[in-house]
């Protein structure tokens, strides 16, 4: 046991660091959306500049899924020590109103608003509509409903277009929305002729506009996006008092200490108002609207009120449902499974394989293997990666009959090497314990 105790001591001392000033270790920036999308690009640029400003690594984690629920709830429920910051998006205002999560803007302490991208409406270049008035006339006179896409059912762009429907006095439920994973696949549907229009932000559609295959009928902002899209008229210019859009900003969990919030807020202000960030945002076609903590908090509350009103209103209850319920597909799968299982049972095709010898010792080893995984899940957040994985691996080696010296040597080289590889080189946010790692 002595070498193991000594090794643990070494690990402990090496992993231990005094409580220095903030930040003294890598910061995680949670992005609720996937790599390659607009939010991810803004997040990665922010992380890069924040890293230069703070002098520690800022690692982006794409916590995707659940239309933003995953990332936002993970960011809100993180340890409030300033080492987990979140790239929040407009869905934060919407998800709780739709009853999908308990997390609200109140769960966060906002630090900096970075951008506001208004919704815009696109049609194919060969479509008959060149202005919103012409489209409105079509919607009113045509018996068929307009087919549109741009995001998932009930997402921000769906809400934006349906809101315009309500504004022109039409029933938002008459809009047929094709749910999609994002603006890019929606554009592909538009070109394929499956949908008549796409609602998304201007930068998301920039390549298609440049290619001349897609026409923008208007943008739902108060003023034109003069920097990159000066020719795109606003809805307001065309006589519709309707604005709607998304925003992106950075926040930390609500209970984060004030000193840390101020430090991060000041760093974000330097980043967001610096020339390099401005150059990046302009080239990507993103709007730049900076607001510090207080201004951001006020605009969050305002967005929460207006979006919440919209989502909870009578007219929108219908668009939140869609026509074919969520259990249609699982039910179809159930039928298919029943058919396959029945044929298997009838033909005797479902039989247990008995070509493998099993002995009690084998099952015990199997359970020990499972135990290592369970042990990692339970212990890692308390002890950190090294102190969990090192002993667990060592133990498994010993149980499998590896000599103690060899087991210790292998575990002692392998686990720190894995940590260096993933935690340092590949910037994975491995679990950290009280001793550091």
């Amino acid at each position, binding site marked *: 046991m002595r070498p193991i105790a000594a090794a643990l001591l070494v690990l402990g001392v090496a992993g231990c660091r005094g409580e220095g000033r903030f930040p003294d270790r890598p910061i995680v920036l949670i992005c609720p959306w996937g*790599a*390659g999308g607009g939010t991810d*690009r803004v997040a*990665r640029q922010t992380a*890069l500049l924040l890293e230069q400003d703070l002098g520690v690594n800022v690692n982006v984690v*794409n*916590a995707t*899924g659940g*239309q933003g*629920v*995953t990332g936002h*709830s993970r960011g809100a429920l993180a340890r409030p020590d300033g080492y987990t910051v979140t790239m929040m998006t407009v869905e934060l205002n919407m998800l709780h109103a739709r009853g*999908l999560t308990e997390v609200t803007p109140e769960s966060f302490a906002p630090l900096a608003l970075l951008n506001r991208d208004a919704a815009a409406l696109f049609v194919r270049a060969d479509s008959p509509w060149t202005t919103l008035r012409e489209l409105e006339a079509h919607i009113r006179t045509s018996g068929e409903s307009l*087919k549109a896409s741009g995001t*998932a*059912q009930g*997402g921000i762009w769906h809400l934006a277009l349906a809101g315009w429907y309500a504004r022109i006095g039409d029933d938002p439920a008459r809009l*047929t929305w*094709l*749910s999609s994973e994002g603006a*890019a696949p929606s554009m*592909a549907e538009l*070109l*394929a*002729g*499956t*949908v008549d229009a796409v609602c998304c932000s201007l930068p998301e559609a920039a*390549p*298609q506009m*440049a*290619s*001349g295959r897609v026409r923008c009928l208007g943008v739902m902002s108060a003023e034109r996006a003069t920097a990159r899209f000066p020719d795109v008229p606003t809805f307001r210019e065309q006589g519709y008092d309707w604005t709607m859009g998304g925003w992106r900003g950075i926040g930390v969990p609500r209970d984060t200490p004030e000193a840390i919030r101020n430090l991060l807020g000041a760093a974000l202000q330097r980043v967001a108002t610096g020339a390099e960030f401005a150059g990046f945002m302009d080239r*990507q076609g993103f709007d730049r609207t900076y607001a510090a903590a207080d201004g951001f908090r006020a605009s969050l509350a305002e967005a929460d009120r207006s979006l919440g009103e919209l989502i909870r209103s009578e007219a929108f209850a219908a668009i939140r449902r869609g*026509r*074919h319920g*969520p259990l249609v*597909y*699982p039910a179809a799968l159930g039928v298919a499974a029943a058919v396959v299982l029945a*044929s*298997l049972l009838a033909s005797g095709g479902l039989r247990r*394989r008995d070509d*493998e*010898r099993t002995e009690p*010792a*084998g099952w015990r080893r*199997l359970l020990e*293997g*499972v135990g290592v995984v369970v042990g*990692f899940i339970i212990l890692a957040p308390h002890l950190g990666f090294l102190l969990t994985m090192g002993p667990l*691996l060592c133990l498994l080696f010993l149980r*499998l*009959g*590896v000599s103690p010296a060899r087991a210790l040597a*292998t575990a002692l080289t392998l*686990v720190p090497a894995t940590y260096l*590889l*993933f935690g340092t080189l*590949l910037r*994975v946010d*491995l679990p950290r314990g009280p001793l550091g790692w």
Partner: protein
Amino acid sequence: MSAGLEAVLQPSVLLTILLSALYGVFIGAIPGLTATMAVALLIPVTFHLDPVHAIAAVVTLVACAIFAGDIPNALLRIPGTPSSAAYTDDVHALARRGLQERALGVCLVFSVAGGLFGSFALMFAAQPLAGLATMFGTVEYFWLYLLGLGCAVVATRGSALLAALGLILGLALSTVGLSTAHGSARFTFGIPELYRGVSFIPAMIGLFGLSEVLRNLLALGGTGGAEPPRAAPGGGGWRVGPVFGFALSALWRRKGAALRSGAIGSLVGMLPGAGADIAAWVSLGLSRRLARGAPQDDSDLLDGVSDATAANNSALAGAWVPTLVFGIPGDSVTALVIGILMMKDVTPGPGIFERDGGGLVVGVYTTFVVANLVLLPVGFLAIKAGSALVRIPQRILLPIILLCCIVGSYAVDSRRFDVGVMLAMGLLGFALERWSVPLGPVVLGIVLGSPLEDRFIGTLNTSGGSLRAFLERPQSLVLAVLCLALWLSPLVGLVRRRFAATR
């Protein structure tokens, strides 16, 4: 034209390609790390590079990472990507008998062949291919996904019914979480982590990697018992023969099949809603169908593997077709590429073909060819380095693979919950294997389940619930017929066998 060639063939670009190749192989060989993640990590670096260097880095990295995913696939039974899951059991079976260099050599040579085919398709047929891509809407994708799922049933060795069972299980797992089609939570039991559903990388690592560890732990000899012989007969050392000998003769023998697989890869890869995974399965399915009858020996087994691996590498170049022509990303990597290009004030779309007198596009083409050629030596080194793993005794190797499974599934999202998913899937995979249910179709089901539902519900919603919408357009009719033919073919075979048996 020649300006573009010169731009790529300068020493600094070639050095970038070489470094990216090493990085790509390295990342690809680590379970849980994807090419998309590698490119995302590379983005800050590309800010300091000019467009040709940046594109060279991305293209090379991805091509090498996809091949390198085959290394843990064969040696540890952990597929690097869902497209490798199509032939995991085939290559792993060979590796267990010490033939890993032959199996990986086939993967390498056919990857390069497929990659080169894809590059040439991109070079000479980008515009017409892109025109074809605009014919694909919701309905067509619905049929294409069904086609891919059908191929998984056809391509899997053993009972088609068991494969179908695995497939349906995978599809059922994919319904957990918040559905895109409705925006409502299903089967989540109030657990917020389940809103994103079962992520496919932890699931894949669990189903294949962990279940294999568990199976081996169960079967491992008692303490002090003799190790089963695992070292390769022949092979070893740095000899080129074991890696390339068989593979090159196979390529020569099956040139037609390689071309066919390359074409499938390019066609499927260029569709923004489909990628390398479906390409690999369709190619494998077709290959097994054409071969008629179950694979008899290693050579037959590797025929299918080579077709699948050629198709998935060819699909990578295919994904650039809509990216360059329309500015619509063909996959998640090209989505990142669009961001990188826009940083350089280059807007993807038709305009890109005139950029620098066409130099930029020629630069992309040339990079694809050079990157695939560089893959040959770099991949060879990786195979040789990886083969050392096989010589490690089981009782040391199994805990190491277990570590890989844990860290790999954690690394995807830095989430402990995913380690739990990996464990659950590992136990499921272990149980399924004891009942002879193949695991490849389960993975495909998880990957395609949600897109299939989106297209299914989407078509119903836009048509007002009429089933006629599934067959209205000529292109969807063609796909539907293909799909039905494929789904019915095992039934026909079954009936024929029954008939022959009774006669």
